[in-house]
């Protein structure tokens, strides 16, 4: 029953981003395979918008996405955690002043 096949050549991977409602940003929803941009767009529509999930689609070849290195998480993101003065709750405004 086992049959050795010729290895199937890999097809380009694309990341898919969908705007679900007017006014919202595109959000990453998943990925798919396609040989070119037009087919990727169609496949994204066929796969990710079957239940009315989208109004706009972006597709991007996965290899074009540049990601930060998780091992640099400390250097990149922790310095921001100690700057409470960037947030409104850092400042005291007497209640009688009202909403500010």
């Amino acid at each position, binding site marked *: 029953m086992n049959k050795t096949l010729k290895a199937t050549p890999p*097809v380009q991977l694309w990341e898919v981003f969908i705007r679900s409602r007017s006014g919202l940003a595109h959000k990453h929803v998943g990925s798919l*395979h*396609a*040989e070119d941009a037009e*087919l990727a767009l*169609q496949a994204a*529509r066929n*796969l990710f918008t*079957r239940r009315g999930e989208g109004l706009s689609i972006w597709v991007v070849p996965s290899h074009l996405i540049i990601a930060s290195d998780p091992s640099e998480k400390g250097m990149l993101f922790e310095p921001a955690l100690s700057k409470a003065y960037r947030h409104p709750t850092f400042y005291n405004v007497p209640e009688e002043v009202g909403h500010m």
Partner: protein
Amino acid sequence: MVTNTISVSETPQVLYALRRADDALILGHRLSECCGHAPTLEEDMALANIGLDLIGQARALYALAALREPSLEGGRANTEDTYAYLRDVGQYRNLLLCELPNGDFGRIIMRQFLYSAFIDPYWRAMMKSSDAQLAAIAEKAEKETAYHLRYTSEWVIRLGDGTPKSHDRMQAALEFLWSYTGEMFDTDEAEAMLQAEGMIIDASVIHDGWRTTVQTILDRATLTLPQSAWMQKGGRSGRHSEHLGFLLAEMQQLPRSEPGAVW
């Protein structure tokens, strides 16, 4: 009375709705045969989407036929399911093109392309029908078929202009299907009556635009339009190929085996 077969009172309006409904159902059924068997998972999704659009269109059109059909003896009325499951092959009114067996992915795509290039402008024109219900069906269907045309056009181009092998397969699919395209533009007395009332358009007016669309895409696909002018016909009047009988035998077996049952 529980029955295993129905008669239909084919007034021009009923006949018209059944013709369009049968096209959509039979073609949708053919596409549904591909589910789980397409060349890639992405195309499996795509073909099922088109199949679902077409089955949805068929249901809307059968509902319209049922509404317009004079009531039967005992006040019984036909429904989408009696039309679909209890008519014999000679009572089906679809285009021969829609009932042809799938063949390979190339032929599936080519058939869908040739049909979509016709039916999309057809529904667009039908949006101006004097019949509000037909106009509404047309408006919904047109959005779906516009996408079918885009999807299949892109694949015709890629497969026609892909490899020598894919080019040959697409040219062969085109030659095979070509003589079944003429029936799309036919019209008859029953339809002429409805045309006179502004209820439907004359399908033959779509022909030149269809030909231009087809030529444009075939050029990009490096495929050659067949020269043959001979066209098959018969589906509209119930004279079908051998294939439809097998399709119906499979599709109708269960409801016919248990007359009157609810599923």
